[in-house]
């Protein structure tokens, strides 16, 4: 990592580091549960990758390497906070309680969303880079109008940070002092574009010029991510306005299963980051500082395997939707072109046969 000011509570070797501003508020059990979440989401990710390889998913966007960033942030959210993800936030979705099979409906191409966002307080994935960030600011403006002690969180990547929508969001959030946390996972890559193209100085510094704090946190340190996010959320809920968090991490895998990173990055780089594996790091701490035993870790692995097997079964059972459903929810109210389309599909014998 470079010379920048990075919040860290855990060294790559898994030793506790002290920080003047942030202390670790979690006990051993809670830290173990972070480990559990990270392990499970990684397992979900490997299972999804293999499902994709077997032709069961149209696509998959792996998160290997970003588990600490996502679980740390996701666990910091209060139930009534509302999160706005892009397409890679499986760890956040997990923390929000979204069933894994729901996460995969998008990738099995049976839904453009996958879950009820109001139920889980977690919006549907935004694929157009940056869109969700303005939406999160608007949601936060709604929180203000309701006088609620809640916060909105927008997740986006280093690449997306170049989009006008993300940058306009900073203006709006500052203008209205909106209770929103901007959480950027700087995983160093936007497909083949290194983050050095997007930013000549570290991203977190952008916030200052808009009038709110920006913080860089070691994105592979789940304790630090958790504390930094929790603090930013509390601040937002209490009327302190927005914060930009840059979680400095790394995309260990391909951009998606359609991508071939060997074309644009060298193995050595990936190797370096292998040594910073976020799960190994927290595991080392748990062993050393909390005396967690091997069997306890194995229990988690077993649990993760079971979740993965259930996920596989659920995915395989996910049928092609009735084509007539394409007309559902295109509009909230009656629409003649929807009626016309439904009629045609039925007449052609293509859809709606079981209705």
């Amino acid at each position, binding site marked *: 990592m470079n010379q920048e000011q990075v919040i860290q509570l855990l060294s790559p070797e898994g030793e506790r580091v002290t920080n003047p501003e942030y202390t670790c508020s979690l006990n051993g059990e809670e830290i173990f549960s972070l480990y559990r979440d990270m392990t499970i989401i990684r397992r979900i990710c490997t299972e999804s990758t293999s499902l994709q390889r077997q032709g069961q998913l149209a696509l998959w966007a792996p998160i290997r390497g970003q588990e600490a960033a996502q679980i740390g942030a996701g666990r910091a959210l209060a139930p009534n906070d509302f999160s706005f993800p892009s397409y890679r936030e499986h760890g956040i979705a997990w923390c929000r309680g979204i069933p894994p099979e729901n996460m995969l409906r998008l990738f099995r191409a049976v839904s453009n969303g996958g879950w009820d966002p109001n139920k889980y307080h977690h919006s549907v994935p935004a694929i157009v880079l940056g869109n969700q960030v303005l939406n999160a600011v608007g949601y936060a403006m709604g929180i203000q109008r*309701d006088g609620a002690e809640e916060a909105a969180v927008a997740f986006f990547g280093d690449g997306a940070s170049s989009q006008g929508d993300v940058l306009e969001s900073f203006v709006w959030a500052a203008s209205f002092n909106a209770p929103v946390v901007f959480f950027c996972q700087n995983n160093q890559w936007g497909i083949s574009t290194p983050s050095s193209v997007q930013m000549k100085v570290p991203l977190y510094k952008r916030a200052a010029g808009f009038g709110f704090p920006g913080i860089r946190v070691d994105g592979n340190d789940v304790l630090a991510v958790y504390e930094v996010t929790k603090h930013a959320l509390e601040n937002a809920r209490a009327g302190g306005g927005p914060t930009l968090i840059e979680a400095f991490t790394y995309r260990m895998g391909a951009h998606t299963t359609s991508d071939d990173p060997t074309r644009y990055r060298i193995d050595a780089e990936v190797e370096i980051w292998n040594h910073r594996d976020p799960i190994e790091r927290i595991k080392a701490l748990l062993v050393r500082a909390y005396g967690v035993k091997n069997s306890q870790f194995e229990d988690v692995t077993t649990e993760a395997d079971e979740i993965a097997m259930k996920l596989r079964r659920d995915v395989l059972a996910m049928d092609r939707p009735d084509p007539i459903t394409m007309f559902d929810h295109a509009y909230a109210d009656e629409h003649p072109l929807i009626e016309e389309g439904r009629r045609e599909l039925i007449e052609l014998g293509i859809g709606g046969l079981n209705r």
Partner: protein
Amino acid sequence: MTTSTMTMAKALNEGLRRAMEKNKKVLLMGEDIGKLGGVFRITDGLQKDFGEDRVIDAPLGESGIVGTAVGLAIRGYRTVCEIQFDGFVYPAFDQIVSQVAKLHKRSDGAYTMGLVIRLPFQGGIGAIEHHSESPEAYFAQTAGLRVVSCSTPNDAYWMIQQSIEHDDPIIFCEPKSRYWEKGEVNTDVPPRGLFEAAVLREGTDVTVIAYGGTVKTCRRAADTAALEGTSIEVIDARSVAPLDFETMKVSVEKTGRLVVVQEAPHSASIGSEIISELTQRCFYSMQAPGIVVSGYHVPYPPTRIEEDYRPTVERILDGVDRVIGFGK
């Protein structure tokens, strides 16, 4: 029956006021809509009465206006966004097409995108470039959106309220050149449903369909034609997407001739859509092919010559003559 005479600008203002009184979740957002009341004064006095939290002066970014309105919709608010002029809606195009139009679907119906995007559109006010555009076809093409346009103060008063109450996102096109024209407003009962076309003048020879500012031009053309013995039926489409083909069909089956009048150029436009669909529905009744009298396929010209770009009474009558004289 309570009626009063007011301008379309005032009618919109009253309509917004009533919607805000009825539903506390209704917000207004836009550039300069607070103290200034908007550059057209449509929101005049509303910030004073409803406060800065409900009548929100926006930073100058249209993507921001629409993008945050989406978030507010998710939170349960209904935001009426004012885009200052038609030509400034494009920075928000991505949010409109990718989020506003699609989020109800993407969330399997969980999100209601009940927001209204007010767009002062069309030309005729002698403005500089980008202040006189007719972008309605872009939105009509987009699944997930609806597009309406008012042509009278009464419609303005009611349609803005109906749009705010509707659960789908609506692009609300206001013919800015008619803002200052007066008309009767009946504040008791709406004239008709939001998506119904209105036959404004009955006629037997040619059906002329328009919306927004060109409606009045068509009525004038019909007056003139009547003097020469040509009977024009004038229909105000009101809803540009979806179009009320039922009402239009009845008319074209009667007259057998169709002219659509719009300010937008005719390539892949509302006019093309009306003609292609009505030709299908009324094939055997059509005595001549339908035509579009429209703006030309050029960037909106400097406004010293805009009256030669926009459909005038003369050009509409020329179109009417062409469909009547077709084949003769």
